[in-house]
Structure formats: C-alpha cells, structure tokens
C-alpha cells in the first residue's frame, strides 16, 4: 500500500515532537502486519540527541468496521495503560491518536525487542533459558490481569462459557459444514458447562503463544488486547494451552514452552485462584473455536469475499482441530 506509507509517515512526522521531546524527524517507517482495518507499523523518531523506536497501531478512519467482539483501539490503549499500572508486562503507551492527528483510531507505544513468532519461541536455542521460566511468568501475568480493578476500565462486553459456546455454535451452523467431531465437542461442552462465574474479571481473550513478546529473559510484553472482555479468568489459561499454539511442541501444553504445573504455580503464586476443571473446559472450547475460526476464514473465500490463497488453504486446517478434539475427548493409547 504505497499511499498508506506516505500518509502514515506524514501523520507521524507531525507528531514527532509530541512523541519524543526534542525530536524532529520520523524515519524507517515500515508496516509490520495487519489487515486493511487494523495495522501495525514500526518507525523511529529522531532529534539531536535521541533516536527512539516506536510502534503505531491504527485503524484508518472510515474503516471502523470491526470484527465481532473486538474492543477497538482506543479501548485497547486504555487497557494497556491500566495493565502496566497493575504490573503486567506491556509496552509503555506513548500517545493515543486524536482526530486532529489525521491517522484514524489508534495509539503509539514503545518498541519492545524480542521474538513474537510462536515457532521460534518454542524452538530457538537462544530462547532455551526463557522457555524454562516462561510458563510461570505467563501464570503471574495472567493473575495480575485477572486481579485488575474493574472500575476505571473502559466498557467491555461480558462473555462466559455459555455465551462463547453459543457464539461458536451459531458461527459453525452458519457455515453449513458437516463435522461429526464438532457435534461431539458441542455436546460435551453443553453437558460439562460450568456455572457462570460469580464475579466476572478482566480476561485478555487472546493470551497465547504468538501474542507474547519474549526475549532471553522470558516474557517482556503481553500484546494484542483487542479481544479483551469481562468473564471467566480460566478462559485465558485454557486458551494458552490449546494445541494450535504449541507449534508442534505438543508435549509442552503451555504454548509449546511449558508444563501446566508451571503455569498453575505461577498463577497461584501471584494470587490467582485456580479451577482446573474450568481450565480444561476452556481448552476444549478453545480447540473447537480454532476449528470454527478456520471454517470462518475459508467461508470468506468460498463466498467470494476474500481472494487470498491463504484463506482457501486454511479451510483444510479445521481438521487439525478435529484430531485435537478427539485427543482431548476420546484419547487413545498413543494420542
């Protein structure tokens, strides 16, 4: 998107002095990731004695269309600031975009050094020491998120086991696909549905390998807060254990880097209260959710809304979710 880079660079240039005291120029602007509606950019802001790397998260004005259940970037900014105050490792917030900034909705935050790619986090020799502490650190970070006071937080949707199961069932039904293993999982989830939590807490909603900034010392940042909501804290622990986020290192259930016991110890040591049956419930629901997400992406291609080959190919990954659901619900000797 050549137009975008000019527009973003010019907008950031106007903000240079606001972002970093004494800075005058913006350079090395590059797009990191994201679709049309939500983008992540890296850039540097420089002056006589400073040269600071920063990150912009933005949704261009007019592309306000949001995926169902996402909180929006202004809300994400407030959550990141509140999480930092609560001792959760997150990037420091630098600036929340105003309409006069001309960059749409979004915010600027500090650049964090490290790795976010899941398959490198589970395999790179350089990160071996990090993997020994990462599951405990994730437990501690989650306990802090779940203990954050709700007053002062932006308005968030309230989710729970029943609502999430129904959401996934409706999505699956709307695809019209025929999957006996998914039916079995929906039945299991219905039969094992836990009581709604008495006190919904802040749930990150996408706390998994791939959204964690990791360096040699371990967890440096919890990223991507756009699916945050209020609900059952065990949802975050279960989702972190879903096989899709182990990147092939399936013997280490926590993100492919740690044991459940390490996650649970870290969580309890930081004041979190565990309910292991609920964690399992959310792991099953999360495994099914990944399969439904694969279907949703493939459906966008089948309906002609998307043309990326990647969207077509991902339809053939829903069967990964089927084998993982069977391994959870009807395990065999070898599985």
């Amino acid at each position, binding site marked *: 998107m050549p137009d975008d880079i000019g527009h973003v660079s010019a907008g950031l240039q106007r903000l240079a002095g606001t972002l970093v005291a004494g800075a005058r120029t913006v350079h090395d602007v590059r797009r990191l990731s994201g679709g049309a509606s939500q983008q992540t950019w890296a850039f540097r802001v420089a002056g006589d004695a400073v040269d600071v790397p920063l990150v912009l998260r933005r949704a261009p004005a007019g592309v306000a269309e949001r995926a169902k259940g996402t909180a929006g970037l202004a809300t994400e900014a407030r959550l990141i600031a509140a999480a930092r105050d609560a001792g959760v490792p997150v990037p420091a917030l630098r600036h929340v975009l105003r309409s006069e900034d001309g960059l749409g909705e979004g915010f600027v935050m500090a650049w964090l050094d490290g790795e976010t790619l899941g398959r490198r986090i589970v395999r790179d020799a350089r990160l071996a020491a990090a993997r020994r502490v990462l599951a405990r650190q994730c437990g501690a970070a989650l306990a802090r998120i779940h203990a954050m006071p709700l007053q002062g937080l932006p308005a968030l949707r309230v989710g729970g086991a029943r609502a999430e199961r129904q959401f996934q069932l409706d999505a699956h039904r709307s695809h019209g696909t025929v999957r006996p293993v998914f039916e079995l999982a929906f039945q299991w989830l219905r039969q094992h549905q836990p009581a709604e939590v008495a006190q919904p807490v802040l749930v990150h909603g996408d706390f998994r390998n791939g959204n964690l900034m990791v360096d040699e010392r371990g967890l440096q940042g919890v990223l991507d807060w756009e699916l945050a909501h209020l609900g059952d804290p065990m949802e975050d622990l279960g989702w972190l254990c879903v096989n899709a986020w182990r990147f092939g290192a399936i013997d280490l259930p926590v993100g492919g880097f740690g044991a459940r016991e390490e996650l649970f110890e870290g969580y309890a040591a930081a004041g979190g209260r565990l309910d292991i049956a609920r964690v399992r419930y959310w792991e099953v629901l999360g495994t099914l959710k990944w399969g439904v997400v694969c279907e949703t992406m493939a459906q966008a291609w089948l309906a002609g809304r998307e043309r990326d080959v990647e969207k077509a*190919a991902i339809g053939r990954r829903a069967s990964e979710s089927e084998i993982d659901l069977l391994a959870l619900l009807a395990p065999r000797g070898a599985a």
Partner: protein
Amino acid sequence: MHDQPTPEQLLDAVAAFLREQVVPGSAGALAFHARVAANALDIARRELALAPAAALREQAALARLLDADPTTDLLQLNRLLCERIAAGALGLDTPGLDDALWQITLDKLSVDQPHYESYLRSLPPATDQET
C-alpha cells in the same frame, strides 16, 4: 482419453515450480503465499491419491454405526451422524463411535496436514504413510 502428464503430475510440477523458483525469487508476503499455494496443491494431489479408498472406509464405518443402507451417500451419512449426535442419540459412550471417528479423522489428516504433530503421534507404529 487424456494424455500425460496426469493431474497428479501436473500438480506436482506446479508445486515444484512454486517452491523451487517462485519462493527463492521473491520475498515477504509473495514468498509466503507461494509456499501456501504449493502446500494447497499438495493437498489436492494427496486427495486424488487417497480419497477414493478412504471414502469407502468411511461409508462402510458410518453405515454400520448408523445401521443405514451401505450404499447411502457419504454426505447423507455424515449429516445423519451429526443429527444423531446433536440429538444425544449417539455419543462417546456409543460402542464403535470413537473408533470410527478416529479412523475418519486420521484419513482426513493424511490428506490435509500429514505433518501435523498430533497426527504423526496418533499413527499406528510402522505404517507406510503417504506424505
């Protein structure tokens, strides 16, 4: 009668072209999508080779499980199975259901994602698997 190359050979040729020429000659999103495209062609090639036998296995297993006419169409059998599971008439306590679903799912993975770790671990030891 069609000439050679066969559909399988054509898929093979294009996948090799993508991997050996397009991927090394490009970068970023294009290289990524070229790899995804080659993998998609591999899925199609494996399905051509493996699906006929797997479909017969699936049809026999589902017809037995559902006590249905063994010539019933595969989609129809799968619909029936889904309906009975959703209605609670069949479940994990139904003898043979888990074995049938495991076999069907392993056959699907052998086409879709034969390198998926959960699949590799679930295979019986020492079988010759198509990759």
